[in-house]
């Protein structure tokens, strides 16, 4: 089998999530394939190239989703596509989040920015089988409320577990005085500050807790250090790394992270595995 060969996918629905971010609902001929939360596809277009993109929803009713930010050559091109257009994918690739290990435990989901996208299938998995897990918390931070993704799903999520939301800044401060909290139109309360500030809000037994962290590497670094201080084992902390990738199957070498192939051995790693490696920030 030639794993470099892409297949056509059709954009069933397209939804603008935030500034420069859209969610693509896709369908392909080779459905259903099975994918795990945290895995990714190589998504692209002939003549433009390919980029690794995580599933933001696994296959349901013959569709799956990707949430993509226009960041460079490939993603900017995808940003220009419309509903009904075709694009090309291949995958799924990589190791996902160890959801089975989380069963029976307290689950901390911590996301920064676009990092919520790869965690969304985890959330959906938990919602489907809520009973399998102990307490669940979602801590989610973004630059400002305009960059918050999936806000229309917060309601459903909150029915099952608490959400803690953080913003670096407010996009339109209505008063000059510095504030610690802000509410948006729908009544969601945002803390102004860093994601790490929110760690105090969760009550856990460290030995029975597992954490899935996804976001910019520097944010993951501080979150993981915070979690270690709370007493969670580094082997129970999971992070998802981003590296440049061309093949997705541990051949092209771009994603090598000190002997590890992020595409094959990751992108989800235990913090223990990747902590302190050179050329990384963790």
């Amino acid at each position: 089998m030639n794993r470099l060969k892409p297949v056509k996918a059709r954009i069933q629905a397209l939804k603008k999530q935030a500034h420069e971010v859209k969610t693509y609902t896709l369908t392909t001929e080779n459905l259903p394939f099975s994918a795990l939360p945290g895995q990714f596809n190589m998504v692209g277009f002939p003549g433009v190239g390919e980029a690794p993109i995580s599933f933001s929803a696994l296959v349901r009713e013959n569709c799956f989703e990707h949430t993509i930010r226009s960041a460079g050559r490939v993603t900017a091109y995808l940003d220009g596509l419309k509903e009904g257009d075709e694009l090309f994918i291949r995958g799924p690739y990589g190791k996902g989040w160890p959801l089975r290990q989380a069963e029976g435990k307290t689950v901390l989901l911590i996301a920064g920015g676009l990092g919520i996208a790869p965690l969304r299938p985890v959330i959906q998995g938990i919602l489907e089988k809520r009973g399998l897990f102990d307490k669940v918390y979602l801590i989610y931070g973004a630059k400002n409320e305009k960059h918050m993704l999936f806000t229309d799903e917060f309601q459903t999520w909150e029915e099952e577990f608490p959400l803690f939301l953080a913003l670096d800044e407010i996009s339109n401060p209505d008063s000059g005085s510095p504030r610690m909290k802000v509410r948006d139109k729908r009544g969601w309360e945002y803390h102004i500050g860093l994601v790490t500030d929110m760690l105090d809000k969760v009550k856990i037994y460290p030995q029975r807790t597992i954490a899935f962290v996804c976001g910019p590497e520097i944010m993951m670094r501080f979150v993981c250090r915070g979690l270690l201080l709370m007493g969670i084992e580094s082997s129970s902390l999971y992070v998802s790394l981003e590296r440049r990738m061309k093949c997705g199957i541990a051949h092209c070498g771009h994603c090598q992270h000190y002997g590890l192939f992020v595409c094959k051995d990751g992108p989800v790693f235990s913090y223990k595995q990747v902590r302190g490696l050179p050329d990384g920030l963790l």
Partner: protein
Amino acid sequence: MKKPRLGFFKYSCCAGCEFQVMYFQKHVLETLKNFEFIFARMLLRGGNPHGPFDIALVEGTITEAWQADELKKIREKSTLLFAIGSCAVDGGIPAIKSTMPELDVESKVYADITTIHSIRPHAIDAYIKVDGYIRGCPPGERDLAEALSSVLSDKKPDFINYSVCVECKLKGNVCVLVAYGMPCMGPVTNAGCGALCPSMNRACYACFGPMKQANGPALARKFKMMGLSKEDIKRRFTEFGADTLEFRRALDILED
């Protein structure tokens, strides 16, 4: 599909870039067919220099003040503006002038320099923002094709930006620097020519200009060790890089 509107502008140079489009054998028919030529002095009588342009290609070094003013106007009227050729990309050959006192050079050519209005030669990105660089003197076919086909397919172009050595090795040439001791500029020069000079048994003279991550000083040090004189090293780094920091930096090590 509407044809993209193309403008071609020439400043101080040999006009070879505009000609390269005609030398562009395999693609010339499609280029003529797929683009609407709005302005191209060498190909088209009349034409509209005021745009707007979907794509503007600018060749040549900026050596007179009016050129910079005109260039800024073109920038405003163009969705995409590419520098084409070493002159526009990094000053090219005309920038050799900036290695010596300006008046000296000028008075060597004209007895009466009162009618001359030259300014210090610079690449076009000294004055405006550029969307991409089609390197080479003459510009490499691959990058030129990439630029034009990217406009046609509405994506960002992916230009080559590794060293000439990469192409040299892909071709399987025996390295003329290591094996024959020729002062090859390939290791610091941007690829795109297909390692032409080493394939023709000679050292690269950097006509594609410095690559982004070039380490000029390190190569200058190597040349020094090979026994090249200070002057020879200086000449190698200023033939096509007189207006570039990457190559100018190499001259610092010659001071001591």
